[in-house]
Each structure stands twice: as C-alpha cells, then as structure tokens.
C-alpha cells in the first residue's frame, strides 16, 4: 500500500505525455550513483579534514587530476553557454530542443568543478579573500569571478527547467516567477555568454601566462596569451559535440528518441566548422610557439618531446587525430548524417579537448625547467579519484532527476507521439505512458 502511494506520488511529478521507467527501476539506476556520490563525499571529507596530504600532489605537481578534470569538464560544459548564445543571440531556433539539456550539463559541470576546486585549495575557509582582496592581474581571479557569477546565471537558467515540473507548475506564484524569468532569459543568455567566453579564455590564460613555464607560455594580444582565445574556440567547438554525445547517450540508455535528427546535424555542423577553425589556429599557434616563443625564453622546443612518454606523438594526437579528423567528419554532410560516423567523431573531438587540457596542465608540470632537474611523474591517489568520481556521480544524479521530473527535451513528446502512431506499441507501455 505504501509502495503504491509512493509510486503514485512519484508518477504525479513526471511530465505529462512522456514515459518514464518505474520507480523501482529508477531507484535501481540511482543506487550505484548514490553510492559513488557518498564515496566521493567521504574522499573529499578526508582531504578537507586531514589536509591535502591525502592526495598524491606535491610541491612539483601542485595541480593534479582535479585541475585536469576541472578544465576538461568546464570545456565540455561550454555547450551550455554556446547553445544559449546560438539560440538567444544568433536565433538558431532549432536549438531550443537541446537548450535545457545544455543548461543542465553546464550547471553540473560548473558546480562540480567548483566543488572540486574547493577541495583542491588548501584553505577553503579563505575562499572569499579572492573577492575581498582580488588581484586583478591574476588569471585565477578572472576565473573565480567569472565561474562563480556564471554559476549563478546557470542556476537561474536552470530554475525554469525545475519549475516546468508538472506539480510545481500548479503553484501559481512559481508560474508567475517562471514567466518573469523567461523575459529575462535574453539578458541572462547575454551575460552568461560574456562571462563564460571570458572565463574559458581565462582558464586558457591560466597556464598560458606562466612565463616561468615556457612549455605552457604563449604570446598573445594585450594581456591575454593565445591560449586564451584557443580555449574559447575549442570549448565552443566541442560544447555542441558533447551535447550530441550526451543526448545520444541518454537516448541509448532510455531507449527513446529525444531530439530530431536535424538538431543533431545542426550541432554537428557548427561543431565541425568551429573545430576546423580551431585546428587551424592551434596549428599556427604551435608553430609560432615552437619557433619563436619558446626559443626566445632560452628553451629549445625539441627538449620538451625528449621525455618519455610525452613524445611528439602527443602533438600529432592533439592536432590531427583528435582535431583535424573529427573536424573533417563533422563538416562532411554525408558522414555526419550517419550515426556510425557522427558519434565517434564527437567522441574524438571531446577527447581532443581533454588531451589539450591534459597537455596544458599535467605535461607542463612534468617537464623540468632547471637543467639539473628531473622529469616528474604523478598518479592520483584513490582519494583524488574518489572525489572526482563523486563529482561524476553528482552530475549523473542531477541529470537523471531533471530528466525524469522535468521536460528536458521539449521534442520528446512530439517524437514519441510520432513513434506511437508509426509502431504498434505493446499495451503495458501505453498504460505507463498514460500515467
């Protein structure tokens, strides 16, 4: 009896016209992720209570797994701002099909990154110092300001997604609030776009400004090194790819069609074009750096690739394998129309941006700067991996809840209706759909 009411209550929150799995299955799906989240919180707690000696970071590898993950997930989460930019500013109306998903992914990535950052710093209690005593010359100040502001924007953007829940909609003041919020969405999108363009750049600048690390140092425009712009470009290019990848993944997991194919095609085209531009810019940047910037600081670029395992293959992988190749697939309409090409290409593009962030952070720290210094290696401790796993679990949980109880994909109902008409659907599924 209790279970039945629970089921009913749960069902009442699910959006009308879409089908969702049973409460039991949903709970079963949640269980491992909750366990992982608990483990992640435990790991993070260890680091906070006992100190960062719980990690394998050290005075030479001052940043570890977390900075790499933070940079990567923020780059992947760029789909949020870029889709918003395309939809609200450049008026690509088709993208309203994925904007909610993009916002959720953005929120998850940004809040996850912030959470990891709070564990990563030695004195989390002093985090407000950055706002109170900011050093305006520091890229990290820019990053902190922009990320926290943008996180606030994302949270506001996420509110309508929550408020679209069937039961919450019944509360009139929420409806009014949502309506008011909707009027603001263009402003929010504008502000969000500016903030996130800026901090993607600042994240790029983070290592690009390190004059003492010629492997990462880049020349640039005004105060910003070239990586500032490359990071914006790569994040913008890969954001839509990641959106395709996640949407496809959700479709596979839920066995549903959620988005029309032309949306995928549009995203893929945008991603492909931007990726082409990025690869070109990256290639030019690399050549300038190899031949001018680095030798200018007394560092012959050849020595960077002397240290195993980071040979020149890593350059090739970054630019050609994970850059040019997916770019070419994504701009070729015949190839991207087929899932067998589209999905691997988006995956490659995502790997490319991850590799780029890896090279910028981890490889930079591994390479010696003093002639009598050694090449260093680092592998994360289980506490670090656990914390990161917790962030991942948190993301999956937020997405799962949003997907179940809110209308993440507006086209889902339409596509489902089409599917029901086209196919003979077994009865029980119809019954479930009717709930």
């Amino acid at each position: 009896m209790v279970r039945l009411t629970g089921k009913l209550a749960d069902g009442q929150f699910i959006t009308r016209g879409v089908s969702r799995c049973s409460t039991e299955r949903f709970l079963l799906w949640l269980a491992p992720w909750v366990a992982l989240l608990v483990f992640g919180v435990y790991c993070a707690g260890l680091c906070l209570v006992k100190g960062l000696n719980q990690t394998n970071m050290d005075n030479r590898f001052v940043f570890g797994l977390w900075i790499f993950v933070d940079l990567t997930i923020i780059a992947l989460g760029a789909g949020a701002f870029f889709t918003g930019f395309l939809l609200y500013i450049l008026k690509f109306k088709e993208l309203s099909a994925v904007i909610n998903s993009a916002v959720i992914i953005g929120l998850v990535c940004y809040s996850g990154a912030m959470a990891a950052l709070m564990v990563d710093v030695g004195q989390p209690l002093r985090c407000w110092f950055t706002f109170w005593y900011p050093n305006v010359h520091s890229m990290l100040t820019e990053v902190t300001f922009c990320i926290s502001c943008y996180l606030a924007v994302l949270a506001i953007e996420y509110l309508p997604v929550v408020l679209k829940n069937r039961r919450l909609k019944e509360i009139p003041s929420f409806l009014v609030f949502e309506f008011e919020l909707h009027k603001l969405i263009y402003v929010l999108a504008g502000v969000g776009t500016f903030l996130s363009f800026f901090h993607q750049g600042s994240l790029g600048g983070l290592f690009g400004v390190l004059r003492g690390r010629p492997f990462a140092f880049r020349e640039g425009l005004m105060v910003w090194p070239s990586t500032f712009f490359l990071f914006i470009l790569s994040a913008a290019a890969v954001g839509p790819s990641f959106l395709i990848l996640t949407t496809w993944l959700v479709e596979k997991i839920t066995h549903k069609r959620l988005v029309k194919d032309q949306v995928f095609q549009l995203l893929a085209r945008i991603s492909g074009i931007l990726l082409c531009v990025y690869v070109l810019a990256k290639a030019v940047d690399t050549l300038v750096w190899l031949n001018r910037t680095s030798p200018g600081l007394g560092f012959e670029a050849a020595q960077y690739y002397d240290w195993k395992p980071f040979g020149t293959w890593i350059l090739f992988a970054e630019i050609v394998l994970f850059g040019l190749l997916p770019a070419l697939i994504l701009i070729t309409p015949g190839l991207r129309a087929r899932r067998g090409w589209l999905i691997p290409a988006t995956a490659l593009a995502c790997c490319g941006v991850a590799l780029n962030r890896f090279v910028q952070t981890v490889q930079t720290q591994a390479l010696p700067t003093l002639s009598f210094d050694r090449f260093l290696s680092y592998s994360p401790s289980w506490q670090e991996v656990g914390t990161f796993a917790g962030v991942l679990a948190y993301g999956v949980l937020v997405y799962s809840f949003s997907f179940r109880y809110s209308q993440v994909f507006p086209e889902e109902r339409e596509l489902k209706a089409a599917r029901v008409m086209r196919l003979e659907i077994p009865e029980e599924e119809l019954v479930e759909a009717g709930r």
Partner: protein
Amino acid sequence: MAGAVLTPAPWRLITDTALWSENWPGVPRPARGEIRARFTTCALCPAGCAVRARCVGEQPVLLTGVSGGLCPFGLSAHHLPYHPARLRKGPVAEATAAVAGKAGQGIAVLDLNPGRTASWSYRRAMGAMKGAYLTPQAEPFAYDLSAARTVLSIGTPLLDGWGTPSKVNAARPNFRLIQAEAMESRTAMLAEQWIPIAPGSESAFAKSIPQLEAARELSLVLGEGPEIAEINQRIGAFGKTVFGRSEAVVPETWTREAAAVTAFADVPDHSIAVLLIDETPATSYIPWHRIEQKLVRDNPVVVTFAAHRGGYARHAQFALPTAMYPEVLDDVAPAADAIRPVFRLAAPLVATPTGVVSLAEFVGTLSGVPVANVLRERADAIHHAGQGTLHTYADRQRTAVKELTADAFWKGLNEGGEWTWEDAKPRAAVMNRAEVRPVEPVESPADLPLVAISEPHYAGLVSPLLTKLYQESNLLLAPNRIALHPKDARDAGVVDGGRAMLQTRLGKCAVEVTVDAAVPAGAVQVGSAPGIQDVCGHAARAKVVSV
C-alpha cells in the same frame, strides 16, 4: 536574510573563521620574551666549534657559529633534548646490581669519544679496579694542514667536517688536495684532483703511493690503515705536518692512577665480563659482532650509557639514559688537527633532565675514585700551569691565563671560552709498529656482487630537522639508506625511494634505496645507521634484495 546582512553577525563570522584558520589547534605559538645571547662550545664532535645561542629567556632557539658557520648537526643541537628517540629512563638499580655481581671479573669501559676529561675519569676508575679502558682505535697523530702544500687524502672527508672545519677552511687556499676515493664525495668534488679508485682498494692504493708521480710533492697523506703512518714517515711529514696528538694539562695524580689506553681491536677475544659503554656523543660506532667477540661466553654484562635508543641500547642488557650536549657540562676532546693543547667546556644551554646517569659517576662510585669535580680540577691544573691564553667568545678577547684568577678562568670557560696554548711545542709523532688490524676475509663476489662504501660520518642522534637533508631533499644519504647505481638497482629489482634488504655474510638489514648515478657500478653506498653498520662495514661485500 536581508536584515542579517545589515548586522555585524555574518561579517564577524566569516572574518572569525578566516582568523581561526590562522590559529587553529595544531599551530604552536612560539614563546615570547627577552632575547639574549649565550655562548658555549659544541660537544658533538672534537672540532668543538664556538657556539652563540640565541635564547628567549633561558631557552635557546637558534645556534650559530661565533666566527663562521656551523655544521648542520651542530646548528640544530638545541633540538636534541626533545628528540622522540631519547632514552629517558632505564634500569639503573638493576644495572648497578648486575655489575656489582660480577665484581672481580674482567671489567672494561669502552669510550667512543675519547680524549675528554671524562675519559680520564674512566681511566682512573679502571686503574683502581684493574679494568681496561678501551677506545675505538688508538689515534696517536695530529695533522697540521696549515703547513701542508700538497695533501693526498685516501677517502678522508677532509673538506666535509674533518678536524676543525674553521682551521681547514683557513688553510684550504694554501694546499693542493688530491682525493683518492671510490665515489666523488663532497671532498672529492672540491679537491683539485680526484683519483677514482675501486671501492675497497684503499689499502692497495696506499701501498702504491710511492710509485705515484705526485709522490715527491706530497707533504701529507691522510687515510685509514696502518700503512699511512709509514708513508707519512717516508715522505718526511713527521715533524712537519704530522705530530703527536696533544692534550691539555691534567692533574698529576690522574696520570698516576690511570689505566693504559687500549685499542678495542687489541683486546683478546672473550675476555670482558662487564662492559660499560659510553656512547654519547659518539663519533664512531663499532659493529656489535666485534663487541660480542670480545665478551666472555658465559653471561657477560653490557651496560650502555646512551642518550637514545638507536645504538647499543638495541643489544645491551642495560641501557641507561644519559645527558648529552647541550644539557650537561662536559669538555671537548681535541680534534685530529689539534697539534697544540686546547681545552674547551661545553656549558649546558638547557637544564639537565632528571633521571639521567653518567658513566663517570657510575664507575666513580664503583671504584671509589672521586669524579664529582673533575672539570674544575683540570681547569685549575691548567690555570696552575699558567701557560696559554683564554679566548672568550662573547667579547672575542684573548687573555693570558697568567692574568686571570682561577675563578675567573673557570668562569670564562663556562661562559663560552677556549683555552689554547699557541706557543706550545708540538709533540713529536711516534710510530706505533705494534698495530695490527684484523683483515676482513675475502669474500666471493658471486653471491655478494656489491662492495660497500660507507658514509664517513656517524652521528648518533640528530635533530628532527635533519629530515631537511635526509628526507625532504637527497643532499645527505640518510642513515637508514643505501645508494645504488641505476644499473645495479635494475639488476636488484629495486627502485628509487623503495624498500630493500641489505644482505652481507653477517646478516640482513632493512634499508631504503636511493638510485644515484654518482655511485660507481658494482658498489653500494651505505648509510651510517648502527643497524647497517652492524652488518655492513666499509669494503664489505653485500647484496641488495628487493622486498
């Protein structure tokens, strides 16, 4: 919310939490007080460097040299009273009873820091009890670097804490140094010439010196082993750079009462029934198996007077806690380059801990020889002789002893001062031909492929801050470490920073491994920990096994 923001509460709270992050439990607060300087002499090794202690109230917080620097061990000696490995209590009554129970059987004192006034107390007590007074090796010579032009050193750490570093540094610009050593040691690095020799071949190299091209120019040869004195005599160093070691005046009665000095190696096997060891502050360590060899088979009694648990306290039946520099008044033995008499007192900088015993008092009580006031007696004897000058550290004044009263002389020594007799005539060096050393049996290289190179320094107890050199950098080889050439490390299957077992014919010892290309292939550099020295001496054959 809005209201709360307008009150001081949230702002106070975030400020307070930030302030709390500055002084949360676990961050100690240094005591404040008046800063004063006190002076003493470092008694950790015979160099006896003058020390200026910066004190807050009575508590020393920083030691510095008076003229020039100090070695890292001396610099941090004021931490030693708080070392976690300190021995703080021991079975004094039981040890006394056990020793008394063996009355009349062969008793001996092993003095690991000979040449002090306490050493005379041991000798007098042993004289009264017909016991033996033993030192690691009878070292009759003193060397004068200031008169040397070309020095050949066979593995001596000449520029790395040998003798009196300030004297060595002063003489350094005037002599050429040739260092023959298996590894490029600290001394070899700064030497004008480094002759790499095979590890363990020091003796063979010494024998070949007369054939060397540079032999004619040599003014001094330094090294271990009986052949060195002979070579020095042959190159005419005796009377120029090699002299007999000098000691400050001792009261005449002492010399009459004292037992002779016996080198430990010269003691017949299985002859000691009661062995009393003074190992603080020790400047060398004799492996336990050598000591065991000298003890009677039937129920010997070994009592060690130690400041820490790491040395003979691991083997002896009784380990009694003893005070050490800088918590006890003691004098400092003359160094290897003391060609003229010198007398220095290490006045305590902190209070002597309770519950400690001293070997001098122990044997004094046993033998009935009065030892309570020996330092003052000796200072009075020096004063009575009326030679030399007192150099006080605080004001850097030199005063002739003749101008001082006995009390003023004593006070000057206690407040940081050094008595020297600069115009004394150095004693002539006397060849001691009777010296015979046990030769290590030749071992087969097949099962023990490596040859050991041992660290020159033995520091019994070191400040916890020495982790800066041993652990937080790889500047010094930590006492419990060994270093291997990368190739040998690969063969042994061990990695840098890993753990391993060091194995010799005498036994095994757990060690940590440093992989260092500076160690020659086929050799293993071993740390100075007593545990390692117990199984692996210099030139011993060894094997490293991964665990």
